[in-house]
């Protein structure tokens, strides 16, 4: 087990080095975050912003508290409207079902709108394995698909790509130089996608939310591709996580107010689409068949646990846009579908802690994510809880355990503490006087590789206090302790 975890730590470190060493990437992530913060700052300063977040948290908590009821209500309403519902217990079941739907209809080309849950279940690979061409039609996803990469960010999948990189990807695909003008590049993508929309036999979308009271699937999009995917092909398949419901349309109000601002910095998105069943008799457009695949894949195990609140997530990406760790390591270092603070919690819960053993520890617990979360999920607290689980499951390094147990044993014995402190201070002074010599070595190596270690003062505070009857003898605030 130790060997496995060492290998995974090495792989994690290598991904971090790759991100930190990529100057262009560093710039792009920081600029992206700063841009989002500037856009969202006015909204956050509004007095009713916290109230909207409270309302979202309330709606999501209510949904999760009675999820069984809302799922049943949603499913029966989808069926009443003429749709078909399939419950997938795990990723494999969901994949098999969608592949069977495609094969049963002789589908050769599928257009997709952006969906994280289809990334989660590895749907594209399964469909391609069955000989079906799958085209991502969200511009960011289209770019990421051409690059054979995972989304870098849950809302902005290609945020890490420079214009030049996108130009190269498009030019390779086109077999000609598409030019460096962003409008020309977009025109190229639009041209390719337009043909795919008309030729596709099946459209696959995610769902921002399902409305239990009506059986409607609500999509919040900006590019218009979502509407093409869900109306042009004969068959529309919705893939959604089982938790992504709201009780009623009224419950969407706060979410639709916050999601565009928190997600892309806009007051509203270009499109909010509510799909209620397939095309009905006499209607001019819409798919002939609507299938809704409701995916559990580990979610019901989270329900009722100490992590339940993570299921309140509305996938706005606000935590990624403020996280100082994501700012440095970016999305791909997480090696997970869900990245950033929400990914650091959700990915280990969905895939197993052992698969993402480093993620809960790759946080300074600064709390920025908890502060901005649109659904008021205490993300930093959940990250800390995952650390407790790592320790309990024996996934954390044994050396740290010994260290903390030892520290606790001493800390609970003040006299022993004082004695050890008395003995350790001269050694620490000596070590820090050694300065450059010890740089990057010894027990403080990880610290001193990048930072000086402070030179302790001659005496501890405790010792000074003991002599405080003669305070002139002790250190004063004007005396410098550091070297």
């Amino acid at each position, binding site marked *: 087990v130790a060997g496995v975890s060492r290998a995974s730590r090495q792989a994690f470190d290598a991904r971090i*080095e790759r991100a930190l060493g990529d100057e262009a990437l560093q710039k792009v992530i920081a600029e992206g975050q700063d841009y989002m913060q500037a856009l969202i700052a006015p909204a956050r300063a509004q007095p009713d912003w916290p109230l909207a977040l409270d309302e979202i948290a309330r709606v999501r908590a209510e949904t999760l508290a009675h999820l069984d009821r809302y799922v049943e209500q949603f499913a029966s309403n989808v069926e009443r409207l003429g749709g078909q519902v399939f419950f997938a217990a795990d990723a494999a079941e969901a994949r098999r079902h969608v592949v069977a739907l495609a094969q049963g209809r002789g589908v050769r080309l599928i257009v997709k709108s952006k969906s994280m849950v289809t990334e989660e279940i590895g749907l594209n690979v399964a469909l391609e394995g069955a000989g079906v061409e799958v085209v991502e039609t969200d511009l960011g996803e289209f770019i990421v698909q051409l690059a054979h990469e995972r989304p870098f960010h849950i809302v902005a999948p290609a945020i890490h790509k420079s214009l030049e990189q996108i130009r190269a990807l498009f030019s390779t695909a086109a077999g000609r130089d598409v030019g460096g003008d962003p409008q020309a590049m977009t025109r190229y993508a639009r041209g390719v996608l337009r043909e795919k929309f008309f030729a596709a036999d099946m459209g696959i979308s995610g769902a921002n939310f399902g409305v239990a009271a009506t059986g409607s699937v609500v999509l919040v999009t900006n590019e218009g591709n979502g509407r093409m995917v869900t109306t042009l092909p004969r068959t529309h398949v919705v893939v959604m996580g089982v938790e992504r419901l709201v009780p009623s349309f009224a419950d969407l109000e706060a979410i639709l107010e916050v999601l565009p601002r928190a997600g892309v910095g806009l007051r509203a998105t270009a499109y909010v689409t509510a799909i209620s069943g397939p095309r009905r008799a006499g209607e001019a457009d819409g798919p002939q068949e609507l299938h809704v695949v409701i995916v559990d894949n580990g979610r019901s195990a989270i329900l009722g646990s100490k992590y339940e609140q993570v299921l309140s997530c509305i996938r706005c990406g606000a935590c990624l846009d403020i996280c100082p760790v994501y700012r440095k390591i970016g999305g791909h270092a997480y090696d997970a579908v869900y990245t950033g603070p929400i990914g650091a919690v959700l990915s280990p819960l969905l895939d197993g802690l052992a698969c993402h053993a480093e993620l809960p520890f790759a946080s300074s617990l600064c709390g920025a994510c908890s502060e901005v979360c649109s659904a008021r999920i205490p993300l930093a607290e959940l990250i800390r809880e995952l650390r407790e689980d790592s320790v309990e499951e024996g996934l954390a390094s044994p050396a740290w355990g010994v260290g903390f147990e030892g*520290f606790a044993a001493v800390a609970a014995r*003040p006299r022993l503490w004082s004695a050890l402190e008395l003995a350790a201070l001269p050694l*620490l002074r000596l070590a820090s006087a050694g300065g450059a010599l010890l740089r990057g070595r010894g027990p403080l190596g*990880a610290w001193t590789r990048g930072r*000086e270690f*402070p030179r302790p*003062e001659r005496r501890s*505070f405790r010792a000074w206090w003991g002599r405080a009857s003669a305070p002139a003898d002790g250190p004063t605030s004007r005396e410098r302790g550091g070297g």
Partner: protein
Amino acid sequence: MITCLGDALFARVGVAAVEVLRKLGVAVDFPGQQTCCGQPAYNAGYAAAARDTARAFLQAFAASEHVVSVSGSCAAMVREEFPRLFAGRPEEAAAVALAARTFEFSQFLMDVLGVQELPVVRHATATLHHSCHTRRLLGVVAQPERLLGMVAGLHYVPLPHSELCCGFGGAFAVKMARISTAMVDEKVDRILDTGAGLVIGLDMSCLMNIEGRLRRRGHHLEVRHLAEVLAAGWQG
């Protein structure tokens, strides 16, 4: 509350805090049984070890009327996490009570003592690092800024991107040293942008991280806890 780090490495900060509190008419005691609040173990996922440490801490401060901490994150540990750590245990009532009477240094000066003015002079251009736990867990943001506003001669320049973590994060600074160093590098860049000659903070752990990186990069800015600035510039 001097904190384990303050006791072992930064005695001067505790001494300064004692001086300031005494000058403000507070009777200061240092219960000798105090060691650590348990935060390092708690944040690293070792709840049982943290609880052992925190239990000793509860006993050490059982008789104290107010507990003043020279570290925002240690104060936050007691105020926010102790009640959670001891929920449903015999120590719960004591933990909740101690949480209510524990304060970060600037929070105590402003919110408990109601300090309006200070006879403090310091001629410097200074910036302030709002530590994350001080800001987000304690909600202490205005207090240190208002105290700095009372210091004659001090030109205060707010730190841009002050909401960004310095990268300390306890064991994180060592366990994820590369990420931590990249984070503190950006913090150092922002500090240098201000042109300040003095960096002030409320938590020696963050300041140790920031100062350590500043020094490694060859910068000689002065790095001080707020208590040191107040004690050193106190007139009379």
